[in-house]
């Protein structure tokens, strides 16, 4: 494997800093550098879940504390060799995190501030249990008698080297995650978790994994810190100080970049050290407060976010050979008549409202099926249930013979079903290119990163958005946002595409463009179900139409026939009384 410049840079800086104990500097430098490494591990590890995915945890103190007490208890009370206690500290912290996540991440509404508070509450609960049980029991644990593993020439340098190794490892892990599938998935969760799931990101597993890694590293930092402070008490450990400092550092540095928290950790640690070492610690504390306020108000994306934004304008698109739309491998339309999607007695109720009431419908391979019905008839609900956005309350769905009901949305996406949203829901902080390549990675195509990027360029060229590849979705107009939705659906290389009112709000000219595009999509071998109110488009595109009314399917067949159906006429126009 070829190591990137960044990895070499991190390892080089680590090696350089590892030589400090042999320079004969006063011990003061070692303890200062120790604190830098300590806060770097904590802030970076916090960022892996909270910065990337937006689940701000205030419970980092709990995982840090578990690590601290594990190492302290095992080494001081049970006489384990200290280095052996560190993996256990990391493991126990990770177990608590994963256990907590397994419960919390299943409750959909516990996001944002609620997740922050819940994790803070967990900190106090864990702290109280530690204080009142044999883990601590009240007096705290002394580590004076614990033998310090001799990594460096002195005791303090050994502790520093442990933290340095931890910091280097954490930097590498953060970097690796950000540039991996996991990282991209977490960023998508940050922007819109529901859409991420529907696009094929296994959100629950990813959050759990990120939380586990984050907690393990916090536990490691805690274990080392127990030796550094050499006296552990519950009152000093399970406080709001660790989470607040860590949040502060990460937000100051920038949470959307792997190195952001490290920048913040260095800045805050230096500030605190500078002021506490000076004559006026109170003024120092106030200065930290003022800086925090100013940074959040004027640089809400953090130092690194601010700097990257300033340089972003100068960066151009990396030259990737973009095949013209014509170069796409031609695929003949496959109208085999084989049943692709077989929906039987599908029902969906929202409390009292029966949005879908026993719908039975077959979609044939290679066809374009128009889904019609008055407002509130259940068209969008049909798409939401088939794509797994909502679970069905009854009935069955078979896709190429495979049961879809009960599957999680990301499994449905990976099976080969893609969808668009009526109101475009792009990932707001990802570029147009990333929005598309993410789907190519996580959707039915399941490509690796390089392939996914190439695939994304291809489809951007297909829909005419290649000039906007580097733009953020907010910079697009409605027409472009609608086309971005389409592009995303296509990049998954779906067998079945569900289009939810892609034409609404477009001008007549744009509608013609879109109709031509949808035809091209079918010609490439995809089967299409589309919900639409624009009758001109329905008549032009649909091989068959299905009409829903009050959640029930009232007619299916060729468009011309269905439009003459008496039930359909009365559903749209009312029953004639005259």
């Amino acid at each position, binding site marked *: 494997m070829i190591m990137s410049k960044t990895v070499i840079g991190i390892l080089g800086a680590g090696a350089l800093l590892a030589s400090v104990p042999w320079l004969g500097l006063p011990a003061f430098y070692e303890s200062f550098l120790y604190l830098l490494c300590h806060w770097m591990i904590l802030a970076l590890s916090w960022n892996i879940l909270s910065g990337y995915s937006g689940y*701000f945890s205030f419970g980092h103190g709990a995982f840090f504390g578990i690590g601290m007490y594990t190492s302290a208890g095992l080494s001081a009370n049970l006489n384990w060799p200290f280095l052996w206690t560190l993996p256990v500290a990391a493991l126990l912290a990770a177990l608590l995190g994963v256990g907590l996540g397994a*419960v*919390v991440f299943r*409750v959909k*509404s*516990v996001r*944002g*501030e*609620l997740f*922050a*508070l*819940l994790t*803070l*509450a*967990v900190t*106090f*609960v864990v*702290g*109280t*249990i530690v*204080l*009142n049980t044999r883990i601590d029991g*009240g007096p705290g644990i002394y580590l004076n008698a614990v033998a310090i593993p001799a990594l460096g020439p002195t005791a303090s340098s050994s502790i520093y080297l442990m933290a340095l190794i931890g910091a280097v490892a954490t930097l590498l892990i953060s970097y690796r995650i950000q540039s991996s599938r996991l990282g991209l998935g977490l960023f998508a969760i940050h922007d819109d978790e529901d859409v991420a799931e529907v696009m094929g990101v296994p959100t629950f597993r990813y959050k759990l994994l990120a939380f586990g890694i984050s907690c393990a590293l916090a536990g490691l930092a805690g274990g080392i810190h127990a030796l550094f402070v050499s006296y552990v008490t519950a009152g000093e450990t399970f*406080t*709001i100080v660790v989470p*607040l400092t860590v*949040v*502060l550092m990460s*937000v100051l540095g920038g949470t959307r970049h792997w190195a952001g928290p490290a920048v913040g950790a260095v800045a805050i640690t230096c500030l605190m050290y500078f002021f506490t070492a000076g004559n006026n610690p*109170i*003024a120092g*504390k*106030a200065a*930290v*407060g*003022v*800086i*925090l*306020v100013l940074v*959040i*108000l004027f640089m*809400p994306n953090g130092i690194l976010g601010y700097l990257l934004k300033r340089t972003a304008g100068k960066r151009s698109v990396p030259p990737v050979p973009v095949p013209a739309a014509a170069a796409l491998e031609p695929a003949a339309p496959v109208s085999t008549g084989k049943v692709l999607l077989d929906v039987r007695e599908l029902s969906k109720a929202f409390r009292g409202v029966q949005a879908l009431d026993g719908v039975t419908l077959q979609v044939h391979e290679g066809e374009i099926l128009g889904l019609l019905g008055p407002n509130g008839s259940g068209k969008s609900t049909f798409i939401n249930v088939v794509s797994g956005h909502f679970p069905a309350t009854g009935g069955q769905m078979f896709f190429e013979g495979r049961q879809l009901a009960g599957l999680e949305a990301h499994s449905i996406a990976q099976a080969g079903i893609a969808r668009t949203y009526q109101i475009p829901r792009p990932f707001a902080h990802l570029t147009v290119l990333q929005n598309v390549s993410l789907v190519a990675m996580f959707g039915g195509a399941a490509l690796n990163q390089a392939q996914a990027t190439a695939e994304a360029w291809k489809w951007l060229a297909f829909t005419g958005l290649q000039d906007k590849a580097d733009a953020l979705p907010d910079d697009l107009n409605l027409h472009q946002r609608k086309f971005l939705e389409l592009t995303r659906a296509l990049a998954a290389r779906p067998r079945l595409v569900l289009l939810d009112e892609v034409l609404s709000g477009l001008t007549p000219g744009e509608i013609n463009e879109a109709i031509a595009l949808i035809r091209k999509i079918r010609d490439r071998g995809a089967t299409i179900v589309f919900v639409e109110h624009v009758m001109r488009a329905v008549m032009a595109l649909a091989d068959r139409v299905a009409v829903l009314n009050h959640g029930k399917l009232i007619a299916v067949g060729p468009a011309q026939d269905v439009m003459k159906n008496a039930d359909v006429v009365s559903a749209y126009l009312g029953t004639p009384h005259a």
Partner: protein
Amino acid sequence: MSFPSFNLLAQSVLSGIFIGGLYGLIGLGLGLTWGLLRQINLAHFGLVFLAAYMSYHMATVWHVDPLLTLLILPPLFFLFGVGMQWVLSRFAISPFNSLLVTFGITVVMESIIQAIWTADFRRLETHYNDQKFTVGSLYVPVPELVTLVIAVSLSLLIWAAMRYTDLGKALRAMAEDGAIASAFGINQKGMSLMLAGICAALAAVAGICLALTFTLTPSQIFAWVGVVFAAVMLGGLGSALGPLVAGIIIGVSEAITMAVAAPSWAPIVSFSLLIVMLLFRPGKL
């Protein structure tokens, strides 16, 4: 674990009600800004302590009756709250960033308090301190009773105002959807300034009550955050009566835990309640 006498238990419950009233009083303003302005205002705790220290200063140095400071401090804090909101409203900040900004403000306040009154423990000594009376076999301390009465009456007052006045209705509409409320002629900016002012004034009242019943030290600011947050969340964001009711439930359950088990077990009650609430009734928040 030993089972305490009935009398001890009753006295515990009573003191739980009193401390719960203070939780509710501190949580009242916090919950209103959180629910209606979508700001998690940690500076509320800084304001509570600032008011507590100012009341302490007026009473011990200038010999002003502490209850008289109730007339002086809240208007002063109202202006301060309006000013702070005026500055913050010039920036579009997310609820989460509001937490961080107000944390910074709180740290500054803590430093100011420490610079003026030092980190030593301070106790407001007045003739109210020792006043108590007995009901049956139970002692009722006057400062705690005053706090409870203030907490209950302010919560009821705000609840009624939110429910029955046009102003309250406008505030609730604004919380629901600010842009739409503006389109219907609600002066969003003016309303949020006023609400922030009222919440700061409420912080001042809570601070005076705190000074009457507790020993003060600057680092205690953050000790109240957890439990008051729990009361606010359990009671419901933006609710006027919720924090008081939840505060009293927490206070009483803490007091019973202290009496039955040990004082050090007390925090587990409120936070376990909060966790259970968040997991099983998240829709209510």
